[in-house]
């Protein structure tokens, strides 16, 4: 028998652990909450500094305190069903309908473009052409067609949000790999079965990415629509406040708008987690 030398330690022996010295730069080692607080304080501090020492006029930039006071005022108004609640409700409706419409149309066109040769050859080029246009410029047209009511805003919001959803859906339908396609072929799956049972589920992550980009655009569309086409929404409140040089009000209205946008995004994100439950784990394992 060959004798092999091993380095099995005897029970009595204590093993000196190999210690890794990991150098982490100071800026990377700051805990998250400290870093976030730091950025926040710096931001507010700079803001306070430039306003209180008169570098900028209060009409251009109010002090943080003024802004906070107004944010509280607007919040109180909304909570007590004051005159701002109705405009908020209108804008939310525009966003909701615009978003629903964008998902419906975007998904349908996405399937047409991503699944059929006809769509890819004959429809996609036109979609790309329209997508490169500044879509906000269509706002006056929508107003002319649909009037000053909520419809023209819904249309513009949907118009802006549709394209990323088309692109996301089409890309998602192309995401399935050769093996999966062949597998479905060997199982004798019909085109519809392949689409519904394989291509769509495979493409869901991309589809949701498109929807998330759309969620950001739908907000911008609704507000731009209100700026350019009147109406009684939150955008109108902003426009009025700005024309009265009520800058704190503009700031706090924007803040509340961004909360709606954030809520929309969170809802989509949450839905994605529930629907594309298998994606989570791959992301998690990448982070680990």
């Amino acid at each position, binding site marked *: 028998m060959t004798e092999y030398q091993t380095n099995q330690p005897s029970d009595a022996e204590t093993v000196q652990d190999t210690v890794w010295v990991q150098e982490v730069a100071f800026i990377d080692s700051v805990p998250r909450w400290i870093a976030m607080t730091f950025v926040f304080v710096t931001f507010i501090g700079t803001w306070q500094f430039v306003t209180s020492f008169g570098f900028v006029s209060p009409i251009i930039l109010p002090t943080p305190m003024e802004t906070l006071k107004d944010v509280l005022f607007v919040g109180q108004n909304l909570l007590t069903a004051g005159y701002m609640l109705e405009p908020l409700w209108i804008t939310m409706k525009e966003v909701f309908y615009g978003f629903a419409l964008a998902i419906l149309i975007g998904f349908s066109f996405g399937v047409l473009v991503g699944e059929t040769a006809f769509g890819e050859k004959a429809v996609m080029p036109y979609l790309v052409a329209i997508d490169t246009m500044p879509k906000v410029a269509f706002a006056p047209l929508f107003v002319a067609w649909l009037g000053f009511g909520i419809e023209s805003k819904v249309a513009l919001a949907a118009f802006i949000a549709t394209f990323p959803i088309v692109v996301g859906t089409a890309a998602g339908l192309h995401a399935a790999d050769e*093996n*999966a396609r062949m597998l479905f*072929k*060997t*199982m004798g799956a019909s085109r519809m079965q392949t689409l519904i049972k*394989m291509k769509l589920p495979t493409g869901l992550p991309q589809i949701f990415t498109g929807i998330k980009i759309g969620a950001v655009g739908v907000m911008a569309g609704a507000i731009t629509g209100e700026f350019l086409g009147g109406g009684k929404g939150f955008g109108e409140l902003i426009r009025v406040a700005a024309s009265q040089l009520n800058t704190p009000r503009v700031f706090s209205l924007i803040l509340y708008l961004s909360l709606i946008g954030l809520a929309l995004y969170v809802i989509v994100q949450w839905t994605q987690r529930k629907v594309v439950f*298998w994606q989570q*784990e791959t992301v998690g394992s990448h982070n680990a």
Partner: protein
Amino acid sequence: MNTAVAHDYSGAPLGAPVYELTKVSKTYARNRVIALEDVSLTLRKGSFTSIIGSSGCGKSTLLKIMAGLIPPTRGRVILQHQPVTGPRRDIGMMFQQATLFPWKTAVENIVLPIEIRDGKAAARKAMDKAHELLDIVGLKGFENVYPNELSGGMAQRASICRMLITEPAVLLLDEPFSALDELSRDMMNMELQRICREQDATAFLVTHSIQEAVILSDDIIVMKPRPGRIAEIVTVDLPRPRTLDMMTTPKFGEIVDHIRGMLDKGEDM
């Protein structure tokens, strides 16, 4: 000499022909590559045939033609007395990647072929059988696990079950275990042999491993590249069932050496 008939292995009765390929040629229109030229072969019921050859010599092309995934340019493919003109129920296929769908649990993946062919109700009925199959390949307890939580070898086992659930008469295997490490690969091969014998299935395996081909097969088709054609059909007359320790026998070594010699020659052509 391009025509060749697969011989049966020693001792066993000669099975009826299942697959008959006659002068099958394939030229890809896109790049005018002649992938296959005049390939003729016969697979007999219950036989295990491997095909081996250098990369790009048309093995996958041949398998896809046999599976009815792509049409041959010329030639005839007959399976169970009927020409192959598209994917068929009596063919089970397995690819290099397991390709389990992450939104379905292991059993749901396995009954997917049934779901597609006969609908959801039939798939539910097939669940019991899927459980049995999972048990056979050693995946008991993993029925309701999602593929993300399976290792590569476990996923491959599950995909074997998916192939078997429709009880296909022939199994077409395109390097099914090449993503696995050698140990699990040997184990999977023994598993495969057992399953094939139990179900009396006819198997056709593409592989890059000479050892794997020899330990599993009754016949080994050695291919030459550019254009892809059959160089020789080697009959392996090791007794059945094969065991892993046969790999150390002189006979095994002889056959391996012979095939390696053939393949080396192929490189110069």
